[in-house]
């Protein structure tokens, strides 16, 4: 009876200092999977290693092996990364069966991520899984588990809105710009001053279609340097705002102590540019743009606090949606666990039937050989033995199936006992899976 075991750590439980020691590079990953496969306790394994988490998923051969397998995984990690098992125990979580399934589903549904609803984790898990599969460490159980985990990740994303709404300042700016202009294609962005945040925002805007970048800075050399990154036009800024004539989006982040863009000059510019929309983003502290500018027709002003409020409200929305997502994950995990159990019990049931049938057949042949029976009598005796086999097995097998369906934890032991008591040779490749 196969058991699912997982050992791992993530940003929720461990600091970066610990996670970085545990991380696997690509070569390390392949090497360690090969070593894991050589061990007796582990049948199948997948290693997931991203910057936020390191997790080992494994299939152990039997119930008794499950604890041994978990211990072995911990020891393996400790040995591989030259750490003490105690420190691993302190920072790692250990999951069995249903817990493992639920945990993996939460990971692919991005519910366990730093930012709920982020899109990268699904791809990262897929990549790790594929790499593990290439080394031959994945068998039918993990194959089934991960395939299901990917589909649960997709289901959660399509049936809830946990991925909706920007959760970073720069994306919030892009989203707002789209609400104003619809498309950013052919639009011009002007960067006043320079800074990491304004460059990041500009980068996202360009990635979303903005075609022209103008960089204005008091120091021309600085403007040239920033403009190079976007293939933009550098400009020496000398309190002349004429460069705003062509700008659709303005990002301001200078360290000027006073407002650089005031209401009246901007109103004049807006009139001269025939009131084409202008989206102004003021990420400077102290502010560069007079808040009164938002009273100018067709000019929309957002400062850093406004953008942060948008992000906060989006995060809150995602948290609310996460409740619904958790429900989906719990439901899918439970269903998958039951299916897995049923499929895993089937080979045992089949084997015991075969064994009984074999005994009956042998005895029948011996009986026919000794007593010369007519065809009619032979048929009667054959059907009688078959009925006996069936009836003897009926209750035990039905109870076993019930135990599995009820999610009864004992059934694994039942299966184990059956296999050992009857010396069943259960084919372990789970070809029916």
């Amino acid at each position, binding site marked *: 009876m196969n058991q699912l075991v997982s050992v791992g750590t993530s940003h929720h439980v461990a600091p970066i200092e610990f996670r970085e020691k545990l991380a696997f590079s690509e070569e390390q990953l392949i090497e360690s999977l090969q070593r894991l496969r050589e061990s007796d306790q582990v049948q199948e394994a997948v290693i997931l290693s991203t910057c936020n988490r390191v997790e080992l998923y494994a299939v152990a051969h039997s119930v008794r092996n499950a604890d041994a397998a978990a211990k072995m995984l911990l020891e393996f990690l400790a040995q591989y990364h030259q750490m003490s098992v105690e420190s691993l125990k302190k920072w790692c979580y250990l999951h069995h069966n249903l817990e493992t399934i639920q945990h993996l589903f939460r990971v692919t549904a991005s519910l366990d991520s730093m930012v709920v609803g982020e899109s990268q984790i699904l791809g990262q898990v897929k990549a790790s899984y594929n790499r593990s599969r290439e080394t031959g460490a994945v068998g039918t159980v993990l194959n089934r588990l991960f395939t299901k985990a990917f589909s649960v990740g997709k289901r959660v994303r399509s049936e809830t809105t946990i991925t909706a709404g920007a959760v970073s300042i720069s994306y919030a700016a892009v989203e707002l710009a*789209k*609400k*104003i202009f*619809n498309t950013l294609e052919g639009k011009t962005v002007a960067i006043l001053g320079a800074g990491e945040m304004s460059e990041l925002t500009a980068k996202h805007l360009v990635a979303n279609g903005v075609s022209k970048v103008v960089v204005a800075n008091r120091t021309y050399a600085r403007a040239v340097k920033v403009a190079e990154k976007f293939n933009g036009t550098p400009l020496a800024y000398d309190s002349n705002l004429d460069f705003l004539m062509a700008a659709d989006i303005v990002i301001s982040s200078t360290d000027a102590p006073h407002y650089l863009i005031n209401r009246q000059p901007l109103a004049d510019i807006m009139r001269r540019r025939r*009131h084409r929309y202008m989206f102004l983003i003021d990420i400077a502290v102290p502010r560069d743009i007079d808040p009164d500018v938002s009273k100018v027709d*067709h000019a*929309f002003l957002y400062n850093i606090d406004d953008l942060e409020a*948008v992000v906060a*409200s989006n995060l809150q929305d995602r948290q609310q*949606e996460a409740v619904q997502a958790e429900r989906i994950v719990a439901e899918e995990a439970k269903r998958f666990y039951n299916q897995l159990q049923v499929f895993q019990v089937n080979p045992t049931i089949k084997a015991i039937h075969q064994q009984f049938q074999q005994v009956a057949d042998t005895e029948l042949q011996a009986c026919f050989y000794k007593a010369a029976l007519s065809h009619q009598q032979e048929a009667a005796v054959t059907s009688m033995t078959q009925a006996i086999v069936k009836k003897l097995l009926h209750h035990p097998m039905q109870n076993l199936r019930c135990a599995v369906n009820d999610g009864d934890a004992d059934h694994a032991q039942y299966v184990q006992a059956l296999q050992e008591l009857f010396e069943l040779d259960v084919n372990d490749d789970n070809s029916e899976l």
Partner: protein
Amino acid sequence: MSFLFLLTVLIYLAASIFQALFLATGARSGASTLRPKIASIALWSTIAGFALLTFFIGVWVLQHGHFPMTYRTHSIAFFAWAITLIYLIIVRLTDLRALGSFVVPVAFIAILISYNFVTDVAALPEPLQNYWLLAHTTLIFLAYAAFIAAFGFGLMYLIAERKIRQKTDTLFDNLLPSLGISDELGYRCTILGVILLTMGVIVGSLWTQYIRDVPWRWIDAKVISTLVTWFIYVVQIGFRQFWGWHGHRAAYAAILGFAAVLCTYVGVDLFLDSMHTYR
């Protein structure tokens, strides 16, 4: 016949309810998974209502041998038909469902008012039974429908702009089109409306002048009121072209134009004397 019309009214009611629900589901949390279903029910019930109404008018024309334009109820039903047609064309071209939440209820109210359609059976006076009347009224009703679409875009623009200025990121603003889209499509609808209205007026005047040989009456209330409406829209287009009056100014102008359309269509008909008055 009356059963068919009742069914049409009910389907329009359902369509209006689902169109309104569609906007209500725009609020982020909760009903988000229902939204696509509601959107498709809203659209398909609108299409069903439109198909039934078209069928109904078609059957009526076959039965009576002329176009239903004698009574106010006839004209209002036709008005509802034109509004739905323009809305469906816009959805087909742009896939902007949100417009329906503003426009389909107007069509529903129109068809509800026209409920006596079936019992109003007097024939159209002989001189009016020709294709001139059909062309004249069709063009003008399609113009009205285009103006109502422009009005819907204007409302959506104003709501969305308000949301952006208030910096509140809630309710149905994520279902509303962007400012640029509402503004541009509202403008296109306005231009379409002006072209159709101009053509309708020309057809009407040619018909009276040259075909029926009726002396031209400038002081006909409907004529004057239509000219005022036409003027409001033409001035609006001019301001936009020459002084860049777009955005919320254009949106307010679309609302003003809608009010003028209502005055021309309903006000004149009910309260003033005109050769255009229905029975």
